[in-house]
């Protein structure tokens, strides 16, 4: 028992160290080149610094894996054991103890249950987020970053989308130098304000034409609030780090299907209204309209 706890502490410690070192990596990346890199060969110095940090992270990760493999999972549900007799305690000041005990028992029981489920899911689904290409030639072709794209590439891409639909007009503004915010007017139905980060869609707000272009306030109408929610789901669905153009274009196709937001009935129940809202969901593949409750 004593040994178990010690190992658990060691593992938790290792995780802590890993997290803090990963934090350093991101801090260094976000700071970019600093003054203390000097003038000569500053790029090389920065890369070396990053490499050192990443090596540390790698070592820490190995430590975590070692520590975790030493752990033994608890055999089954915990037993309350002799502590159950606390319920028969007669002294006034100790009577409260039993309630707390039962509560913490419930907690540990829940944690056991959830972690078992989570462990199972993680085992079956790989969580590797990095897209790996193994052949060198292929790697050259794929864009290494979708966050850092030259502005004219984005510009071309947006104007290509603009030409794609006649009833959708796009106006671009660049409050943050590189990253454009576009305002899409979809017929006379709605307008969408979309913020880009490179070629990645970062934020979408749907509003009525009469409302302000502010990206942070949501629409005052229920229906546009719902559509905003759904477009966030679609934004995540169409996110494709390897094919950013395709991702953005599919999202625009999907958004374009809202041209019939008020006029087309739900595909499933054939009604216009459900809880006083028109069909606010569009199927991601077929673009057919559904109510939130019908999809």
């Amino acid at each position, binding site marked *: 028992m004593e040994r178990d706890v010690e190992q658990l502490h060691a593992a938790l410690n290792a995780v802590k160290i890993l997290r803090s070192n990963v934090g350093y990596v991101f801090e260094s990346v976000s700071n970019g080149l600093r003054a203390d890199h000097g003038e000569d060969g500053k790029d090389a110095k920065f890369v070396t610094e990053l490499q050192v940090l990443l090596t540390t992270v790698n070592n820490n990760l190995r430590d975590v894996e070692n520590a975790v493999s030493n752990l033994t999972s608890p055999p089954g549900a915990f037993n309350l054991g002799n502590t159950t007799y606390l319920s028969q305690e007669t002294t006034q000041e100790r009577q409260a103890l039993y309630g707390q005990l039962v509560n913490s028992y419930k907690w540990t029981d829940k944690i056991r249950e959830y972690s078992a489920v989570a462990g199972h899911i993680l085992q079956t689904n790989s969580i590797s987020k990095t897209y790996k290409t193994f052949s060198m030639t292929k790697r050259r072709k794929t864009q290494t970053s979708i966050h850092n794209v030259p502005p004219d590439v984005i510009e071309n891409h947006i104007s290509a989308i603009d030409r794609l639909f006649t009833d959708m007009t796009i106006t671009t503004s660049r409050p943050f130098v590189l990253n454009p915010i576009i305002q899409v007017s979809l017929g*006379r*139905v709605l307008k969408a304000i979309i913020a880009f980060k490179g070629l990645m869609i970062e934020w979408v707000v749907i509003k009525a034409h009469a409302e302000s272009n502010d990206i942070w306030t949501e629409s005052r109408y*229920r*229906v*546009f609030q719902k559509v905003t929610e759904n477009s966030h789901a679609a934004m995540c669905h169409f996110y494709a780090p390897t094919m950013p153009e395709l991702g953005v274009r599919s999202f625009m196709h999907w958004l374009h299907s809202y041209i019939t937001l008020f*006029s087309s009935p739900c595909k499933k129940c054939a009604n216009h*209204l459900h809880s*006083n809202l*028109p069909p606010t969901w569009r199927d991601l593949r077929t673009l057919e309209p559904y109510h939130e409750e019908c999809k």
Partner: protein
Amino acid sequence: MGVTVLQQFPIVEQRTGPSTIELLTKRIVALGATQQGQFLVDCETYSSVPQLGAQKTVHVLHNSEQPATVFSILETGSKTIPLITDGLFDLLMMKMSNFYQSKKQTKVESKGPRFEIGDFSVKLGSVAVSQNFKGILVEVEYRPCIVPAMCWDLIREFLQGFLGSSVSSTPPPYLQNKMQEVYTPNDTIQQYLEHFTVYRKSHFKM
């Protein structure tokens, strides 16, 4: 400003006006609406004095939804010209009392509770022609949409769900010519004026 449809609600014989309003209130509250105060639309009509030549009529309307605005509609016989101004127009009308005189006993108003349910706003108005109760006008506005053609089916479904079979399946005649245009507050006023004119005529028959 969304698309608004004005609908007359028939009063069955054994019911009075207030009890019909009560019935409709019960229905709309049961659907989940919350009451948001009262509303009032009124209309006063002025006619030109004979010295001005062919008789012209000016209808001056106020809508509590646009409290700082006065809507006036000039009928010359061949044309109707709407004019949308701010509140001072009322005083201007008083100055012109030598040329335009208000007809006696013709002030029409529709007032009652105003409800909101989702993105709809619903107004249950009792129409009175110079204080005499005449009938009930139900106004339903769908606020997010600005083109009648796009949301007529949706509004009709809402109206039928709430008023029953008395709702016709074709849009009101005034809207039929404007289905593809952007809806403006003036269109609401025009609908009110049409209904008010009908109520007034029924007044003269009695």
